[in-house]
């Protein structure tokens, strides 16, 4: 932040501040990581060792089979497949329909556009919890309860305000001249959207794709409300019902939790750049 003189010219205050910063960085890193370490350590303990005070940090004996037991205690393979199906359809829906709508908002000029974009932004701030009960009634009238339809179909209608907003912001950074050139060459508006804008927006599309996937992977309240038969459960519902049924089996609960968290962390590390960009774009460039 401050203009930096050479190291040997630093005042005592600056040096103290520097070391205080380093100390706090490390301290909070430990605070942030400790729960993860505790999770993994506990998930590898025997049922006996887990209820031991003071706790041991290195499990002895260590029990990697906890993970296998947890994953077979309930049909997690099936839950995994259900989750992939829902999440995959969500990603397809969001990537195409939100960019489609965003194109209209970013590049077309027509009366009523700003009004509708205002409505998009209003729904962005409208919490899902408000619609929980009313939407359930609509979907139960449609006979969609205990199917994946309530979790998938609405996404095909614009894919959510957040994604429309993000795509619109991204489209606006693409020079209009490119599109005009295509139009002069006889390209229709659909062509401009499909052949010019989409290929140029890959980073933003990947970002919303990742966010959508993770949301579907993590979401409990939607699947819990609509899915009734255990064969339809997603990972989140499976894990939640696992918890209510295996009260004191902390070893298995924690192993299952770690197993469910792992893919998310893997996705994060593989796509850190898009991830951070997505978070930042929600907050800035308003």
């Amino acid at each position, binding site marked *: *932040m401050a203009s930096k003189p050479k190291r040997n010219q630093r005042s005592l205050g600056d040096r103290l501040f520097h070391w205080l910063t380093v100390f706090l960085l490390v301290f909070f890193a430990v605070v942030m990581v400790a729960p993860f370490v505790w999770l993994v350590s506990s998930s590898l303990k025997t049922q006996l060792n887990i209820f031991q005070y003071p706790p041991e940090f290195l499990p002895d004996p260590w029990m990697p089979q906890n993970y296998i037991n947890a994953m077979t205690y309930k049909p997690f393979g099936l839950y995994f497949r259900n989750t992939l199906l829902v999440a995959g359809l969500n990603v397809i829906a969001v990537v195409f329909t939100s960019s489609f709508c965003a194109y209209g908002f970013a590049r077309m000029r027509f009366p009523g556009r700003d009004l509708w974009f205002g409505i998009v932004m209003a729904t962005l701030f409208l*919490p899902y919890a408000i619609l929980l009960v009313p939407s359930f009634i609509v979907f139960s009238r449609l006979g969609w309860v205990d199917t994946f339809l309530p979790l998938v179909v609405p996404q095909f209608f614009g894919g959510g305000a957040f994604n429309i907003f993000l795509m619109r912001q991204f489209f606006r950074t693409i020079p209009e001249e490119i599109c005009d050139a295509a139009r002069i060459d006889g390209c229709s508006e659909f062509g401009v959207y499909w052949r010019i804008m989409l290929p140029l927006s890959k980073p933003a599309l990947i970002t919303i794709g990742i966010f959508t996937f993770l949301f579907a992977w993590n979401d409990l309240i939607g699947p819990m409300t609509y899915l009734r038969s255990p064969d339809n459960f997603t990972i989140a519902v499976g894990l939640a019902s696992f918890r209510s049924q295996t009260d004191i089996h902390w070893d298995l609960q924690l192993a299952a939790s770690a197993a469910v968290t792992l893919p998310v962390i893997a996705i994060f590390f593989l796509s850190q750049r898009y991830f951070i960009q997505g978070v930042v774009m929600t907050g800035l460039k308003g």
Partner: protein
Amino acid sequence: MSLVDGSLWLTQQYNRLSLKRRRTLMGYVFITPFILGFVFWFLVPAVVAAYLTLQRWNLISPPRFVGMYNFNRMLNDPLLLQSLKVTVLFSAISVPLGLVFAFFLASLINNKFRGIAVFRTIYFLPSIVPAVANAILWAWLFNTEFGLINFVIRALGGPKIGWLQDPNWVMVAFVILTVWGVGGSMIIFLAGLQGIPKIYYEAAEIDGAGRWQRLLNVTLPMMSPIIFFNLVIGFINSFQIFVSALLITNGGPQNSTLFLVLYIYRTAFGSQKMGYAAVLSWLLFAILMILSFFVFRYIGSRVYYENPDE
């Protein structure tokens, strides 16, 4: 008329339109998915919910008109009062605290050390743990006898705290686990901090401003739109706390974590009172509307925008 004739006819009609009309039409074609979605998944449910507020319905037998019954019930419902109390309390503590902590962490990682990227990653990780796994993890961390948190406290000579059994401590526990996951707002703050032009700090330093003054007179005013954004998002999220309350304490002990959304969920899907649940949904909507109004009116007006047109 065959399909080909039909599309031919449509094309002719389209070509007859003036350029301006054509543009308008195309614009609406593009935003049609959103408009339809808004009607189907927002307006229709809202109208249905409004209709249901006057009905009594358990999802099985047909709805029965009961007039203002559900609204009267709302006025004399001790559980609703309790859920409002704990939700407001939770928001009032966790939002400002989370905001300050996120800002503080963002300032820490806004340094140029070697390996700072590792710290950024570590600080961000907690916010991406799936909600259900997160709830299980924290239920175990807060375990009175064998949890890590009580272990650390006791090792430092403190008492054994009944985090999830004591109605007062349980609120502290929920604030702690919420504040642990502030990585999202932290990253937003970090991006904001990095966007402040260096020249402002240099100018302030030439004028003899110390660290504290630079924070107060440069950083905070420049960051005010972002602070405001995180504040609004923080309030909306805190009012919706649900998964951890459901899985860690299931509303207990003594309803001290019966947050509003959990109460709505139970009313609708536990005791099957759809009419009353619709009233409560509208109540939540009204509360958030009023809250946003005051936040925008009194705090939003103090926000400093460098380029108000952008």
